[in-house]
């Protein structure tokens, strides 16, 4: 069909269509096409994710399976083997598995920090979402966000004079005639610092869930004989689980890979897995082993979350809550 016929047919149908052939017409047609709409909306995100996420991950995977420089040396799984020393496993010398133990400790700290963050966030968000006067809500939420305006590093440094042997807490304890507590340069220091940093990340999603929780549901449960604790267990907790999971997963991932906080507050006994990765890249210049350790961390953390989500979905048949896609 010729373009003239098209125009004629359009005229008969009285449908406004772009003139064919002209530059303007072609431009308008392009602007209408699905491909153009798709690439202009999704394109920038795809480019960003490719450059800053996909390429580094591919690089990391590549490094982890070569003996030394990628493609100029042979393939090997020795770096992964170094993580789990099979001879130590077979001879039951589990104490020798220092990397596994370190990863285990990091995951343990991550679990503790996640649980503590949620425990702290629940009462705060319950008040914010259910009781706080409307005009104060935004101010109170801002109070949670304000610490983000200061550098993470500075905020972490600020804990040193609070937690140290002669610091604020121990100074107060001494003044009261109580024994001092070892709070800095150990696991406790790491945990305190991490909880402090990550509480806002559980507060915000949990607040969104609490805000959306119909207060009459809580009243109904109370009316039907539930004590405060039972009302929480039966109504508040299951209905805010999606928010808790969203915040908890985020905190768990970030904490399992925490580096700065344990470096500053953790000392030797509070050492975490990411610090070993840094050592491999930084001072040991063993990028291949560092890459392998990173891959292991990613796989283990994702695996843990997957298991936790499967378990979470099946909790008391709380249908359709959280992590449906996992």
């Amino acid at each position, binding site marked *: 069909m010729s373009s003239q016929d098209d125009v004629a047919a359009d005229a008969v149908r009285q449908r406004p269509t772009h003139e064919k052939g002209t530059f303007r017409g072609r431009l308008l047609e392009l602007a209408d096409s699905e491909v153009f709409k798709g690439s202009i909306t999704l394109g920038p995100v795809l480019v960003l994710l490719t450059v800053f996420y996909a390429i580094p991950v591919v690089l990391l995977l590549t490094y982890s399976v070569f003996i030394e420089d990628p493609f100029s040396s042979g393939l090997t799984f020795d770096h992964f083997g170094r993580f789990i020393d099979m001879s130590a496993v077979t001879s039951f010398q589990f104490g020798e598995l220092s990397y596994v133990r370190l990863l285990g400790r990091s995951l343990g700290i991550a679990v503790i920090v996640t649980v503590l963050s949620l425990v702290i966030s629940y009462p705060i968000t319950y008040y914010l979402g259910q009781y706080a006067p409307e005009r104060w809500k935004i101010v109170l939420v801002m109070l949670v966000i304000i610490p983000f305006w200061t550098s993470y590093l500075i905020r972490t440094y600020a804990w040193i004079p609070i937690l140290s042997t002669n610091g604020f807490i121990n100074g107060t304890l001494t003044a009261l005639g109580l024994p001092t507590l070892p709070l800095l340069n150990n696991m406790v220091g790491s945990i305190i610092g991490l909880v402090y940093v990550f509480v806002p990340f559980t507060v915000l999603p949990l607040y969104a869930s609490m805000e959306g929780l119909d207060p*009459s549901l809580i*009243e*109904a*449960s109370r*009316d*039907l004989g*539930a*004590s405060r604790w039972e009302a929480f267990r039966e109504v508040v907790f299951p209905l805010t689980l999606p928010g808790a999971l969203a915040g908890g997963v985020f905190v768990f991932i970030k904490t399992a890979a925490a580096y700065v906080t344990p470096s500053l507050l953790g000392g030797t006994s509070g050492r975490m897995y990411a610090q070993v990765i840094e050592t491999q890249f930084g001072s040991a210049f063993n990028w291949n082993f560092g890459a392998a350790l990173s891959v292991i961390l990613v796989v283990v953390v994702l695996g843990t979350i997957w298991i936790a989500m499967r378990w979470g979905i099946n909790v008391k048949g*709380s249908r359709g809550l959280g992590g449906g896609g996992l």
Partner: protein
Amino acid sequence: MASTLHLDSVTKDFGDVRAVEGVSFDVEQGKFLTLLGPSGCGKTTTLRMIAGFETPTEGCVRLGDTDITAQEPYRRPTSMVFQNYALFPHKTVGENVGFGLKMRDVPRDERSDRVAGMLELIELPGIEDRGIDELSGGQQQRVALARALITEPEVLLLDEPLGALDLKLRKNMQVELKNLQEELGITFVYVTHDQEEALTMSDEIIILNDGEIEQRGTPTEIYESPRTRFVAEFIGDTNLLDGTYVENGSGATVECGGVDVPIDSFSAVTDGQSLSVSIRPEKIELGGRTGNGTTVTVGGEVKDVIYQGNVAKVHVDIDGTELVLEQQVIDTVNLPTPGSECTLSWDQENTNVLTG
């Protein structure tokens, strides 16, 4: 276990706002009481104080001889049906209905038997395993009712429970609720702003306005003899006439512009004081009447006739004062024509003197 619910001069302030002011009433066991009023009149707050969700600023709530003013909601023998039903979305119908029993540590087997029985009662047997989102609005309403009734409360509190249903369903539920209440013999305290709903279901109605009780009475008393201007206007349509009270020997009249409305002499007011009266449109007839009471007859001119199917509203002008009357339409030919002269009459008993 016949416990009367008492409210003794209950007052509730929210900050500077007084929501309920000195409300006192009592409801006998097994009665259906409705708190009726426009939104913001304090009816829901009153209900919530009975449920225990709000603590009165002053006054007390008693059930039988027990003071329950400060008792936690979960210790009170009251149950509430919420306006939006407040069914737990993460629980099945069975878990929702059985919730109150679970909280009372009733064993699982007994629980499922009683849930099944309750679902039978609300005519939705066998839906224990359904999700709440799989139910229609009417079914949710019944499930909410079942959940509140399963703990065998002494008082059931209902906060506009039919508000979200469509008209036809609402009418059905009104009858069903009333039947259920009579069957179970539980005290119902029902909050609504729908006057028709209140008249249909209640044994007694309390009209609230601005946190205070305007009038309390049976549906008939409330409708037939409103005592205040607010009640007369709020319930049904009426002719409100403002005038001056004039004594004349044995009786009295209220002179309202073009109409002199004769009333029984009234000791509460003195000669020349202003007074309002209310006459329901359906109590006024066209033409003279031969009743056995004292008949009031006035003449006027038909201004307007509004045909509404079963009835017609006739607006009549009497020397500048307008009265509306309602006439059954038996035959459209007999409707008066605008502009024609007419005579109106009503029984003097049907004139209500409004004191507030």
